[in-house]
């Protein structure tokens, strides 16, 4: 495979996202000899800092430095990338809220294949990449074959590829700004206004040592009471998965996951939670995970240390009673 490989680097407050090093590993699985070019957009000193940091891991860094990119808007950066990226290249982008905004449209503009949310690569044959994806919230996996011969945009699931910490590259930083903005900026059809910060709730689950976390398996709002009872008996706080917040049964500040809070408890009890990657993405610091789920095949059992296959509506009250008994 002689195709050039690019990795689009997400950064925040002058620091590259963890996915930067994960994409080096992903690129290596595409082609062991590939030299990977990092593409970094932003503005000013902050951007320079990120470029310098990333250059120690990538053989080349392309930077796009423009005042309109102080906060990156996918609608603005997409045409710039379309100008600078070669048509037949392979572009890796993290599959998170920004990547999801940018990537599908970029694949159309580059007339490249699109492979979303890849979790592994298993080799290339005749210009076709065999990759692994998940469907149905991780309940089943699939092999897909993606024809990358005419170029491809591939989003990579954060955390799926190991970070490559080798830092041997010492890469060149190439300023691509002039080429990226040649012919003018995109028409400002979508204008960034501001970031509305998450509301602060009554408990700060990011500080809790023990979390009893509840998911859609709880079925009814009234049933939440038994979860709070268990948490009280354990001396824990209650957190939840997204559907509980969507239903407005608990406040957003209790949601664990990529679009919620990142928590670092010592013990995490997942009750009726399937274990989607967006949920697990909010769980850091290797807690002791106990999962209770009536489906023995639920993906949460892959992440958990201890599993109990049961109906939480039966199990939770019994557990609570026992703990209260012990405590007297």
């Amino acid at each position: 495979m002689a195709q050039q490989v690019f990795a689009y680097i997400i950064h925040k407050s002058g620091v590259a996202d963890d996915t930067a090093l994960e994409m080096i590993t992903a690129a290596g699985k595409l082609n062991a000899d590939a030299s990977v070019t990092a593409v970094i957009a932003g503005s000013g000193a902050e951007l320079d800092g990120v470029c310098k940091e990333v250059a120690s891991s990538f053989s080349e860094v392309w930077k796009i430095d423009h005042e309109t990119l102080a906060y990156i808007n996918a609608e603005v950066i997409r045409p710039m990338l379309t100008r600078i990226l070669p048509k037949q290249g392979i572009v890796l982008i993290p599959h998170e809220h920004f990547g999801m905004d940018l990537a599908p449209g970029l694949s159309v503009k580059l007339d490249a294949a699109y492979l979303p949310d890849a979790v592994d690569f298993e080799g290339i044959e005749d210009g076709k990449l065999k990759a692994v994806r998940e469907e149905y919230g991780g309940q089943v996996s699939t092999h897909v074959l993606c024809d990358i011969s005419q170029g491809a945009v591939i989003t990579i699931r954060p955390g799926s590829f190991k970070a490559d910490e080798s830092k041997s590259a010492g890469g060149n930083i190439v300023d691509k700004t002039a080429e990226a903005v040649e012919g003018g900026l995109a028409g400002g059809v979508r204008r960034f206004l501001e970031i509305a910060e998450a509301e602060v709730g009554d408990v700060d689950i990011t500080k809790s040592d023990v979390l009893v976390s509840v998911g859609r398996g709880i079925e009814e709002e009234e049933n939440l009471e038994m979860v709070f009872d268990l948490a009280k008996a354990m001396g824990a706080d209650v957190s939840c998965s997204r559907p509980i917040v969507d239903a407005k049964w608990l406040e957003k500040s209790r949601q664990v996951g990529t679009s919620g809070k990142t928590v670092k408890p010592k013990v995490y009890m997942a009750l009726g939670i399937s274990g989607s990657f967006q949920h697990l993405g909010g769980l850091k610091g290797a807690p002791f995970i106990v999962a209770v789920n009536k489906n023995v095949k639920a993906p949460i059992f892959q992440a958990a240390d201890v599993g109990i296959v049961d109906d939480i509506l039966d199990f939770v009250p019994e557990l609570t009673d026992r703990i209260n008994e012990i405590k007297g």
Partner: protein
Amino acid sequence: MEILVCVKRVPDTAENEIEVNRDGTDIERDDLVYSVNEWDNYAVEEAIQIRDKVGGSITVVTVGNEEDEEVVRREMAMGADNGILLSDDAFNGSDGKGIASVLKAAVEKGKYDLILTGAQADDGAGQVGGMLAAMLDWPYASLVNLLEVIDDKKIKVGREIAGGNQEMNEIDLPCVLSIQTGINEPRYVGIRGIRKVASLEIPVHTAAELGIAGNTVGESGARMKRLDYFVPDAGEGAEILEGSTDEIIDKLVELLKAKGGIK
């Protein structure tokens, strides 16, 4: 405002445990309960709320076959004004880009100010909305969890980003948005509502009617193909506690005590 909402019929993961069939060619389809993709329901609800505020009409569209018609009907029972089924053997085996191309052709046959899709569907791709926008050269915003109409030329949208924060944008119409769950509370559709729309004629558009060349969509146009379904090697999964509930609770309580889970 003329709003088009793209919807997909999918196996309902809240009602089914999804399993791989014996030879890994598909998921086990017997006895599957299907419904509208969770995210699309939020999109239709949002469209209804916009229409009820500023006027206009809502069209619901799906690319699929006869069976998929039921989701169009359901969303009409919910409150959408029109439904369209885009159906042709030539569409079978389409990848995301194929679906987006078919939808594009349908968009060009109408006159819409706003197109809504779900943030993602059953295969978790999250691709069709962004591709459709790029094909139309319309602005796009994904993961929208707040929408306010400013006037007939622009709207304000909040995008969900990390940490529960929201990115506010102003975006020009016409545009395409992918809708995230939690943006609203989709209304309940009762059996009565379904009955009301049961006999409505849902127009079907074929590839020829849409002016789509067969080889650009479907299997032959697809650069992404699914080879198989499988369940990954269990690896180091959880230790499943066995025994009577009492025994399980004994073990669990000991473990929790040891790990500091009971204070």
